[in-house]
């Protein structure tokens, strides 16, 4: 399938190639830029190019690859840093220097690395499509090697030693080879046997989330907030401390310097749960705001496909995306360059369905191999002007299970994480509470109710104070105000730059119980006639 370019407008290229299929990947121009077919009319097709089209000329060749945009899945993805098209950024840097030149093709996985193969099948064994035939050790996990999803048969031979990814590890009797890695189209969810109800809590290490708005393993949460509300810091803190096997972090259209910071920290910090280097459990997909827009659109799909791949090994994977609004804006830019009819705020009308089908790729599942794996998602949203009524936030709200609203006024008071405790919610709450209550902490639910009550009463009292002044309140109410202040400053606030950045559920509960105990003890004393100032001094000592 070869042809030529007949028109170019920004990242959208019109080509004359026969036989292309919709969403096929094509290589455009002399420098083989990656593109995707988005529209076909007669002999002409419209191609969305994932790279900078500067310097591209009409008449340059175009070649269809015959397959959709895929990512390469196999051992060696862990610790990797990729761009939106899964090009390994570190190796790209080694080859072409600190600036990104376009049209440079480097395979996502290193074909020269040797992996020690542990077969789980023998010669002659029958193998079903997608069945596991063996594993290699990657980081601390068993990385399972599976038969291709479209092949089955009896094993003709299977390797029992080390192999590199460019040679087959096994072959079927019909001569079909099985490699250690395979390609998977990014826009197609990987299959599983069935979805499971999300019943287990995902411990993020952030007191406010774990305690008030618990997220489930396999659940989804969104973090909307205007600029300066600490979305990125919160996403990165969760990436560092969450109790999960693997973190896939997507820097989607965000700042380059923040990614530099993240990479340096990940190389240096340890996973608090396993004490292993953080980078060993992480995969970064990075398409900063100045990198091509179409690749930004693809980046979240690249990331979720990698995440699903590890989920299929029975692991708990957390996908963090910062930010989903940048993805939506990329979609809007593309849509507008295709001259599609705009919907609300100029976004294409299919934005909500695309978003919800993306978010639905999360979940706890029974894999096709009968293992239990989970893919959780925490997505940040950057609403323009901090206005949550805009279409992206609203579309996310309908699909996500938890809503953690970041509040500009809290951020201005340097209350971080700036999660608004009145507006935010988690739909997983009830079931997970049972889990917490049964497994570990009987008083979890009671403490939670009490904590909410204090914060709610404080809000009412604050309104009164605005009118009558704090001196006009009764002692009991003033005590409550002080306790609420304690809860906000000592419990809900968590400084991301100190030891306090991470809190286990035990520590979380202990901290709150301390404050609540002080509250009940102090109210007792007030009833016995002690002076308020005296009671409050007790806390200070």
């Amino acid at each position, binding site marked *: 399938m070869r042809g030529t370019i007949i028109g170019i407008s920004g990242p959208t290229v019109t080509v004359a190639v026969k036989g292309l299929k919709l969403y096929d990947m094509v290589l455009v121009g002399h420098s083989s830029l990656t593109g995707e077919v988005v529209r076909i009319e007669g002999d002409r097709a419209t191609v969305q190019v994932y790279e900078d089209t500067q310097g591209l000329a009409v008449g340059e060749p175009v070649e269809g690859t015959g397959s959709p945009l895929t990512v390469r899945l196999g051992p060696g993805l862990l610790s990797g840093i990729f761009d939106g098209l899964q090009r390994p950024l570190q190796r790209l840097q080694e080859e072409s220097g600190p600036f990104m030149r376009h049209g440079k093709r480097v395979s996502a996985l290193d074909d020269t690395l040797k992996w020690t193969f542990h077969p789980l099948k023998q010669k002659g064994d029958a193998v079903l499509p997608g069945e596991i035939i063996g594993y290699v050790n990657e980081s601390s996990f068993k990385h399972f090697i599976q038969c291709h999803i479209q092949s089955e048969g009896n094993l003709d031979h299977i390797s029992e030693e080390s192999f590199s990814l460019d040679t087959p590890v096994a072959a079927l009797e019909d001569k079909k080879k099985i490699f250690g890695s395979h390609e998977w189209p990014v826009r197609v969810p990987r299959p599983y046997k069935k979805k499971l109800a999300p019943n287990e809590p995902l411990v993020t290490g952030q007191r406010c989330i774990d305690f008030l708005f618990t997220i489930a393993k396999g659940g989804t949460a969104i973090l909307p907030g205007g600029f300066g509300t600490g979305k990125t810091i919160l996403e990165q803190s969760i990436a560092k401390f969450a109790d999960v096997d693997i973190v896939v972090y997507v820097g989607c259209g965000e700042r380059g310097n923040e990614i530099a910071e993240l990479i340096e920290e990940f190389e240096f910090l340890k996973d608090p749960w396993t004490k292993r280097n953080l980078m060993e459990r992480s995969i970064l997909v990075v398409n900063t705001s100045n990198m091509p827009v179409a690749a930004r659109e693809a980046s979240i799909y690249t990331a979720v496909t990698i995440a699903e791949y590890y989920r299929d090994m029975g692991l708990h994977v957390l996908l963090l995306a910062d930010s989903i609004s940048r993805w939506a804006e990329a979609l809007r830019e593309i849509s507008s360059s295709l001259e599609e009819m705009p919907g609300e705020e*100029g976004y294409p009308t299919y934005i909500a369905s695309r978003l919800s089908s993306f978010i639905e790729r999360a979940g706890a599942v029974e894999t096709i191999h009968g293992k239990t794996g989970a893919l959780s998602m925490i997505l940040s949203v950057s609403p323009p002007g901090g206005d949550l009524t805009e279409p992206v936030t609203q579309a996310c709200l309908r699909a996500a299970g938890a809503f953690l609203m970041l509040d500009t006024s809290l951020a201005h008071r340097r209350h971080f994480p700036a999660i608004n405790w009145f507006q935010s919610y988690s739909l997983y709450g009830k079931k997970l509470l049972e889990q917490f209550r049964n497994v570990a902490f009987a008083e979890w639910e009671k403490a939670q109710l009490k904590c909410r009550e204090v914060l709610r009463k404080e809000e009412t009292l604050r309104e009164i104070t605005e009118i009558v002044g704090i001196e006009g309140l009764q002692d009991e109410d003033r005590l409550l105000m002080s306790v609420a202040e304690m809860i906000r400053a000592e419990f809900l606030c968590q400084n991301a730059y100190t030891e306090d950045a991470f809190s286990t559920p035990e520590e979380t509960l202990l901290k709150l119980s301390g404050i609540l105990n002080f509250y009940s003890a102090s109210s007792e004393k007030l009833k016995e006639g002690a002076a308020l100032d005296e009671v409050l001094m007790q806390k200070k000592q």
Partner: protein
Amino acid sequence: MKCSCRKNNNGSYSMSLAEYKYYSLSSLSGPLIFVQKVFNAKIGEAVKVFTPDGKQLDAEVLEIEKDTVMVEVYGETQGMDLEQTAVVFTDSLKMASLSTDIIGRIFNGSSEPIDGLPMFIPEKRAPVNGCPINPTARARPEEFIETGVSVIDGLNTLVKGQKLPVFSCSGLPSKELVASILKNAMLVEGPSDFNDREVTALDSNFIVIFAALGLTFHDYSFYMSVLEEMKSGFVAFVNMASEPVMERLLAPRFALTVAEYMAFDKGMDVLVVITDMTNYCDALREVSTARQELPGRRGYPSYMYSDLAAIYERAGRIRGMKGSVTMIPVVTMPEDDITHPIPDLTGYITEGQIVLSRELHQKDIFPPVDVLPSLSRLMQRGIGKGHTRDDHRSISNMLYKYYARGRDLRRLEAIVGKEGMSKKDKIMLDFADALEREFIHQPVERRGILDTLDRGLDLAKRFSPEI
């Protein structure tokens, strides 16, 4: 007939002895020209346009449909016609000429000298759009820049490689603040411990690149007098309010290409000041409308975020390289509205913001920086031991906390009156006033970081609520 020898985008030298002049214009509309029967034009290719009255203008290929090419002209298209206007395709992308001889020179938005001196001999040419820095190649910004302004150094510290915009409102002294930063900024290394009372000024190749977009003559003469007084070198790209809108889009790209060259080829620390990004965005909107693109929020094009990112993200440091590009863009918030698309999108890309407040200006505080919405995201890495002083973080947190409390209480004061407030609250109110008068207010002198921190510490002690 022109004879030129240039590097094209493939890196090889091509001789274009005879460039063909196309007279096949099919339509003209605003800054756009449609040329027919063009052979193999390239997207982004630099184009020269010859008008009937003998002027030569720069232009760029924007869109190609078979052999019809849409060209966008940088300059005034008035007086062009379909018959006598000629177009020449140069076969290369828009390039910036680079050399260290550029230091001290003043150019217009199309990179032509306007200081009366001849064009310098270029040492290198680079495409003005640049290439994104590979995120893994970036070094984390963490080296403190002393601006000499207490409210920035103490509470919203600027570090090398950061992009920190000034959000201003019309009528506020943003240019005086920028001038004070330009005159006083230097790189220093903090003392090793608290008792050491010295900061070391680092020996550095410090240079300022100034891009003025849509500047009035009044502002222009102000900035020029500032630049001429400066000790460190500067390069200026100036697009005046009366000059073509398209050049407003080009000037920052020239400025940043020069900045990257100075930083990463010559190892210099470059501070890029761009004023005013609001004019840039309005130019972007104007051009987008001429292209008949679908308008987004408030008529700005939907790609404005990506376009702004392509400018702002060129700030940074690179691992293993000496130089740095630090950026201070000035944004005038239309209608004083921080949620307007221009400051909004800027704030989403930059690493913090310095917000000026009309209220403080009316109180005669200079610089009128509103501490609460201001933020430097990269501050945490650039302060403390080895950078400034080990108590910097605690001082700034304390000042911020007290001031936020004081500001909250001002609202309460308006309702219940100061008399009705507790002693502790009154102290916080006094603190907020004192911080504005003694710490933020800094009309003339430059303050070193230690002086700034001592002032902060003194304030915190005087108004400690524990008393």
